[in-house]
């Protein structure tokens, strides 16, 4: 347990200090959302309607951007080999790394959402709905993305391959995240149903992600 706590603490510290680049994700999120009005025009009513979708897309791309470094940095300095060889189960170590990554890179996205909601002319209900769905959904983005990150690091390929592998897996999250947000704002549907499915997808990713990532690291590193 102490080993996992130490791993989480170390990863968060590395991410937040100089050279870590966790907060660059938030900056990217902000930039993407600011770019949207330039693309669709400064029509506030339209932005309100598109708001949840834009926020979800921005968060998805931002978390994808930071995922590239999840295992690569550890692979470069050799600590990944130590983690793989240590007596702590690799699945738990992967889960700990993903949790640390989410705390450092995913949670700031959720915290930034209300500010970005203002820019997109979302009212308090809509903003809190989007923030709530992102709070539930971004861990799932990290945990499914971790599979792609583990595959990419064993193949010494990152970037585009990671995006191609991870983005299709995150489509259900996007669907239900946006559906729940839209339902809270206007839709005839209730907020509960899509939100529960989003929670279920999130929980499933907590199970599948660490096992798949650990299997990939165990088979792929030599």
């Amino acid at each position, binding site marked *: 347990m102490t080993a996992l706590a130490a791993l989480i603490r170390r990863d968060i510290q590395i991410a937040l200090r100089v050279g870590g680049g966790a907060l660059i994700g938030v900056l990217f999120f902000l930039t993407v959302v600011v770019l949207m009005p330039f693309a669709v025009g400064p029509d506030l009513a339209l932005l309100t309607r598109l708001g949840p979708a834009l926020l979800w897309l921005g968060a998805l791309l931002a978390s994808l951007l930071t995922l590239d470094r999840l295992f690569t940095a550890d692979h470069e300095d050799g600590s990944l080999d130590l983690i793989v060889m240590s007596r702590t189960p690799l699945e738990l170590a992967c889960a700990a790394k993903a949790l640390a990554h989410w705390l450092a890179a995913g949670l700031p996205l959720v915290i930034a959402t209300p500010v970005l909601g203002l820019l997109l002319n979302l009212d308090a209900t809509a903003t809190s709905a989007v923030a709530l769905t992102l709070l539930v959904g971004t861990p799932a983005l990290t945990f499914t993305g971790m*599979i792609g990150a583990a*595959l990419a690091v*064993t*193949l010494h*390929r990152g970037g585009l*391959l990671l995006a*191609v*592998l991870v*983005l*299709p*897996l995150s*489509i*259900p999250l996007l669907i239900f995240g946006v559906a729940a947000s839209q339902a809270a704002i206007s839709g005839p549907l209730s907020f509960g149903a899509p939100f529960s*499915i989003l929670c279920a997808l999130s929980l*499933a990713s907590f199970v*599948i992600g660490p096992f*798949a990532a650990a*299997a*990939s690291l165990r*088979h*792929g590193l030599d």
Partner: protein
Amino acid sequence: MTLTDLANPTRFLTLTGRLLPWLAASTALLLLIGLYQSAVAPDDYQQGATVKIMFIHVPNAWLSMFVWGVMSLAALGTLVWRHPLADVAAKTAAPIGASFTFLALVTGSLWGRPMWGTYWEWDARLTSVLILFLMYLGLIALWRAVEDPSRAARAAAILTLVGAINLPIIKFSVDWWNTLHQPASVMRIGGPSLDRAFLIPLLVMALAFSLLFLTLHLAAMRNEILRRRVRALQMMQASQRSA
């Protein structure tokens, strides 16, 4: 004769070499029968002659998912049993599965044009087949990104198994959203709701397409084994020349 006997590539090559002509002939025969039956099948009272697209569309859609199932089995063979032919099977199945998925999308959109008035509708099942297609392409990209085949095989096996979780989502997305696309009508509790005049040609076509997959897959596996042998010989020759 067990699966372990087939692990020897030479034995696999001899056996499939004998088997393939028969498989190809029966595929061609069944396809002819199925196409004839589809052509003479009656028009639907609502959809008219366009219902005949179903006889091509539905087998393709079934196989698009079935091939992923075959690849998942091969992935287990790679990861659990280290079966030497499993990664050959997984690698060669991916492009074939991608083709079936692509054909399912194309025929579906051609069928959608007269029925729904649009080539593309962002309906649940269509969308999940499109996701399946993207995942096939991602898998092929993964295979092509790595030079060492056994390394690529293990990575692709994990991605295949993760993707297999996507298959039930496709199947049940019909019930989740239940939009424009009609709910599943052949495989359901209480027997098929399709009329016998449509059901029999459909099943014949499904069988023909499955045989087509088997034929293409075995042929592709043979090619892949031979390709690897050629590569090994070339590398041997190159190392001898440099020595």
